[in-house]
């Protein structure tokens, strides 16, 4: 009995240690990335990194503003393209689709979620980029924000769909029954009862989608062109800004880290810090918005 209890204590200690690992990893990620970015922050200051457009490591210029704009623009465009479809699919799966149809749509969404990002990137390079290149604008290479946003929209769709579907399904049945009993149609019930009740869950789905979009790396490198420029219209038509090339924060890190050293490497770690802060900001502000709209939401 005594030895059994000793084993018990030892196991508990071992489990405690393994549980502590996740927090240890979080701390080391913070420490390593912030510490490695310190030289760049000390040398240029936040102003010098975030306020400058020119990234030219060979000349000691490390402005990352253009990449911040690139990341934010491609994410916003992907949201505009992807969110309506993603939420429509979620409503369809939760409320409208007959069982047999669900059994077709849901695996399709699941498969879209599982396809590796490099495969999306490759599809973008081989299929989308040549299509976009056909738009007759001088300087349009096909690689750029539009192609990247389409690829990204498809990549965030399954995340948003499946979490929103869960959120809609989690609304108590009685809400729906009460609304229908009062004479509302199914459509009115969906838009005026179910969606408002599932608001915080759908909000969480959007946050995850935005996080995934900001964090996507390889597919973006493959289709966005990677030029470090502030996206600008290619001719007089302001819409051609969407055909402009760009570089994302993630792409900047991945493309250059393997050969960078000294201040250059430190500036790339600073890029990581900015990416990290950007994602945190999205999380915090989105959560605040959701909670303000619905104070009872957990």
């Amino acid at each position, binding site marked *: 009995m005594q030895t059994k209890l000793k084993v018990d204590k030892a196991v508990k200690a*071992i489990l405690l240690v393994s549980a502590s690992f996740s*927090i240890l990893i979080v701390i080391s990620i913070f420490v390593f990335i912030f510490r490695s970015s310190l030289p760049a922050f000390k040398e240029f200051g936040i102003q010098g990194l975030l306020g400058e457009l020119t990234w030219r490591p060979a000349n000691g210029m490390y402005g990352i503003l253009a990449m911040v704009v690139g990341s934010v623009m491609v994410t916003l465009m992907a949201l505009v393209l992807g969110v309506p479809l993603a939420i429509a699919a979620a409503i369809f799966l939760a409320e409208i689709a007959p069982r047999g149809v669900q059994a077709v749509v849901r695996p399709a969404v699941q498969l879209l979620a599982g*396809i590796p990002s*490099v495969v999306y*990137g*490759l599809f973008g390079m*081989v299929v989308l980029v040549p299509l976009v290149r056909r738009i007759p604008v001088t300087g349009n290479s096909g690689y750029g924000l539009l192609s990247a946003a389409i690829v990204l929209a498809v990549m965030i769709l399954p995340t948003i769909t499946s979490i929103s579907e869960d959120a809609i399904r989690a609304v108590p049945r009685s809400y729906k029954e009460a609304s229908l009993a009062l004479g509302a149609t199914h459509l009115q019930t969906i838009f005026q009862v179910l969606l408002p009740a599932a608001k915080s869950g759908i909000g969480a789905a959007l946050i995850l989608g935005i996080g995934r979009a900001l964090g*996507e790396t390889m597919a973006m*490198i493959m289709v966005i062109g990677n030029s470090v420029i502030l996206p600008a219209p290619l001719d007089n038509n302001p819409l051609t800004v969407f055909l402009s090339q760009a570089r994302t924060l993630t792409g900047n*890190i991945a493309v250059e880290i393997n050969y960078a050293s000294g201040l250059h490497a430190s500036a790339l770690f600073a890029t990581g810090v900015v990416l990290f802060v950007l994602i945190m900001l999205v999380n915090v502000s989105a959560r605040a918005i959701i909670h303000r709209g619905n104070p009872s939401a957990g």
Partner: protein
Amino acid sequence: MNVPDITSTNAMNLAEKRSAADLRRRQAAQKLSFGLFWLGALVVILIMLVVVGYVFITGFKSINLQFLTTPPKGGLSGEGGISTTVITTLYLVGLILAISAPLGIGAAVFLIEYQGQTQSGGKFIRSLLQVVNFGVETLAGIPSIIFGLFGYALFVSTLKFGFSLLSAALAGACLVLPTIIRTTQEALLTVPVSLREGSLALGATRWQTISKVVLPAAIPGIITGIMLSVGRIISETAVFYVTLGGSYRLPKNLFSGGRTLSLHLFYLAMDTNAFEKAMGTGAVLIVSIILINLIIDLISRKLSAGVRLHQ
């Protein structure tokens, strides 16, 4: 005398007509919108079919036994097959799971099985549990390139493991750890409390209860989590792009670099013009993801059948 009656019937008729018209209008709106929802679902399926179909149709042209069994030869035309990259991927899957599965399952067991303990040190354990849960949540939200950057800073540079299997495996283990912890937590939560109580009441210690009663009951869920992680490792590219080096030769030991399937696809697409071979590699990747999804589906179906039996 009858006048008020007539007007009131008229009013009622009018109201009825109005509400009937209103109902018809609302029903028409519903029909139209539901049509749009069906269209949306159709678009989602079409996107899936176009992406997967295109990769399969163009990819299967370059897939044959030789493609699968010869190593890549490098060079700008992307000659050769994918054999070494398949093996490197398997090495990495094995290594990452060997590190992250025990850690992740252990962490989940601690988080679930010890949360009710309020003996001496109960307060310490409770605040530790909160911190760890926060850590898992944070890890799950960190983009993979940050894990890559971390792996590069700690394992490749500081610890001097270089671009190697070891560096990539350690960084990859950090990446999948939250997945394993969360799915195992969910699996443990589905095990009825009565099983634990029964075992403890029979005089078993907590560890005996966990190892002989709770874990066996939770195994299907845990396997699901591990399969999800396998899928994640096979798909992941960014982390390995900055930690694994990218040599297409077979790694000789833990300290040699290598190239996974998805990394190989990336190099083929970006550095060579061998798009057919890249598509072939993509097709192999999608097939493995489909297989993994099928296995997960099978387990969860068995699992729900089992639950029905219990009830």
